[in-house]
């Protein structure tokens, strides 16, 4: 192994295919997004350079930009809280050998992930339909006067859609956390048990700190997933009512593909890329910052 690692040619040969693929399919398209964001372009004909005009219009004047950012934030919060919290609880539960039907639960939690987004959205769209949806009908049958206009209310529609996304993809984070828990050695828990720690304390002081890297990854995909949310919004609300469930991705799609304003759409896309990058940097920094205190605290902790 040492022989290969000290051989520059070998390193280049092994890394090059991945680097080429990354450049061709990710890096160059991202550069193109930034490049065309400075143009007035219909996506088909010759583009005209307009400098920062698209950026000033989007950032300073477009009312949907503020809505889109707020929605991205709300979406991110809902899916992060729902997915991380439930996925962690469920993962810890199914990792406990005392729990019966663990295999069944593991499969059940993951099933929504393998369903098509369209199917899931149609399903929840019918459940949440204000006129004859399952939820409102159920409430009415139970005699509860709590009819909600889940998807047609400008203030709540984004939360309803975010919930659907969170419901579907919770299983993915669940699988990651289960895998993380499985990688923790049994001896940690045996030591805790000898020290008299309860199951809850053992998970609090052993499982959670050792899953930090997994949580970091889950957090990243949740938060960035919220900012770039699109599919559920397009299928369930079409960005509506009005513009109330727009996100930056939706602004990009709407301008590029229905208004033939690719330049402006790509401006939105480039802001989205920058926001995602900023969030990744901030989250990594936050997690790095907390690394030392968390580990140092664990070293001297009293488990009883």
């Amino acid at each position: 192994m040492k022989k290969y690692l000290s051989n520059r040619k070998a390193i280049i040969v092994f890394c090059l295919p991945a680097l080429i693929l990354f450049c061709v399919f990710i890096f160059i398209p991202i550069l193109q997004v930034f490049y065309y964001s400075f143009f007035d372009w219909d996506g088909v004909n010759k583009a005209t350079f307009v400098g920062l005009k698209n950026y000033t219009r989007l950032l300073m004047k477009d009312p949907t930009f503020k809505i889109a950012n707020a929605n991205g934030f709300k979406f991110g919060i809902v899916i992060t809280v729902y997915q991380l919290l439930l996925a962690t609880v469920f993962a810890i539960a199914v990792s406990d050998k005392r729990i019966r039907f663990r295999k069944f639960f593991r499969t059940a939690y993951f099933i929504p992930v393998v369903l098509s987004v369209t199917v899931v959205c149609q399903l929840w769209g019918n459940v949440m339909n204000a006129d004859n949806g399952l939820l409102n009908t159920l409430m009415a049958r139970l005699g509860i006067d709590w009819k909600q206009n889940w998807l047609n209310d400008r203030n709540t529609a984004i939360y309803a859609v975010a919930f659907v996304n969170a419901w579907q993809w919770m299983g993915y984070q669940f699988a990651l956390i289960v895998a993380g828990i499985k990688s923790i050695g049994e001896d940690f828990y045996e030591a805790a048990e000898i020290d008299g720690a309860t199951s809850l304390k053992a998970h609090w002081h052993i499982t959670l700190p050792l899953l930090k890297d997994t949580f970091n990854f889950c957090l990243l995909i949740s938060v960035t997933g919220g900012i770039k949310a699109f599919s559920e919004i397009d299928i369930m609300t079409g960005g509506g009512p009005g513009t109330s469930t727009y996100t930056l991705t939706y602004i990009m799609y709407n301008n590029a593909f229905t208004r033939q304003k690719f330049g402006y759409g790509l401006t939105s896309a480039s802001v989205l890329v920058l926001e995602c990058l900023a969030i990744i940097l901030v989250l990594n920094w936050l997690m790095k910052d907390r690394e030392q205190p968390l580990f140092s605290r664990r070293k001297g902790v009293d488990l009883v």
Partner: protein
Amino acid sequence: MKKFLCVLLAAMMIIGCASAMADEKIKLQIYGQYADDDTKVPYDYAVEKLAEAYPNVELELIPQAQDDGATLLALATAGKLPDIYQTGSGIVTTLRNSKQMMVLNDVAEKTGFLDKVYATEKQFMFADDGNIYAFPYAGQEYVLWFVNKALFAQYNLEIPTTYDELIACADVFNANGIVPMALFGQEGWISAAMYDAVATRYINAGIKGIDNGTTSIEDEAYLKAAEKLAELAKAGVFQAAVTTTNYDQASEMFLGGKAAMFLNGQWYIEDATKALGDDVAWIAYPSYDAASYEANKHAFSGGGGSISGYAVNPASPNAELAAEVAAFISEKYCEAKVMLRNNPLVAVDTGLVNENFPPMMQALVAEMPNMTSTTAFTWGLTNTTWSNAIGVAGQSLLSGQFTAQEVIDQLVFELE
């Protein structure tokens, strides 16, 4: 003997290859609407007739997505347009500039298509540069306000002529579990059409006036129309889930007797008549008062014509043949619409006579000479930003949660 066998085998191979080549069909990809009876019946009829007239041609259908032309634009951007594709006004300028839309002047003449087009429709065939880019099949189409007369009679209600009467009717219907007006507000074009139906009571040019620059979104009439539509929505004229209701759901409500009114194009006459018989009729749009109702009784939303129909990709390896097929198909669509869908509002004079038009269609044909003004459907608008923005604006107003001023301000921004 050996020589004879060799010659025989060679001859058989040549004959086999020749017959295989003769049997080989030319496949043409076609991107067109194929969603409901009004689009499936004409397409199937055209394909059947095509097999007789062009036995060597086979069509491969790509059903058109209801996405305001997004898929078509994506295909154009990727340089992967099908041989024949259905197009609306908004995308014509873009695709003709990029040379992805064939000039069809010669084919229109050669096939005799141009001679068969009604004089009233001919003007819309030509783009502003004097060329033909699409073979139309639809004639002047209109937005109709359908009512279920039986439901009105059941609750002793008069057909509304003013918005106040409409709101009073809505109160009664809502109290009895009937949706006053079912609207498939998930689709931008019908949301825009609903706004247009109200706007034409205040300014006859409606949404088309802004498209062609004869009016401005800052004209007070547009604000008043927005205020009125928002008021109607708040009063419960539309179903609660209006902005997420699709066509099938809304149509089911109306045809199933669960909604008293419905807004759609005149192509819906056939389906509505089949389901509701004499109980269904279309009415003049209600207005803000009795005088304006009378004054605008013959002003319609829709109509106006547009450069739309079947266009051809000049990069197709069989472009000339595709152009001929596009003309043929458009003509057959017209035949199917007249004979099988009882819709005489087509672009081409098919020479066919149908005496079984439903009463609603007969009433519409009788009304046409009296029409004082028409506007346009969103696909007939040339400004793609406006056609998309007015759909979003209409949806905002239908939700009853946006103020008229808020919506107009957004439109002013979009049109800057």
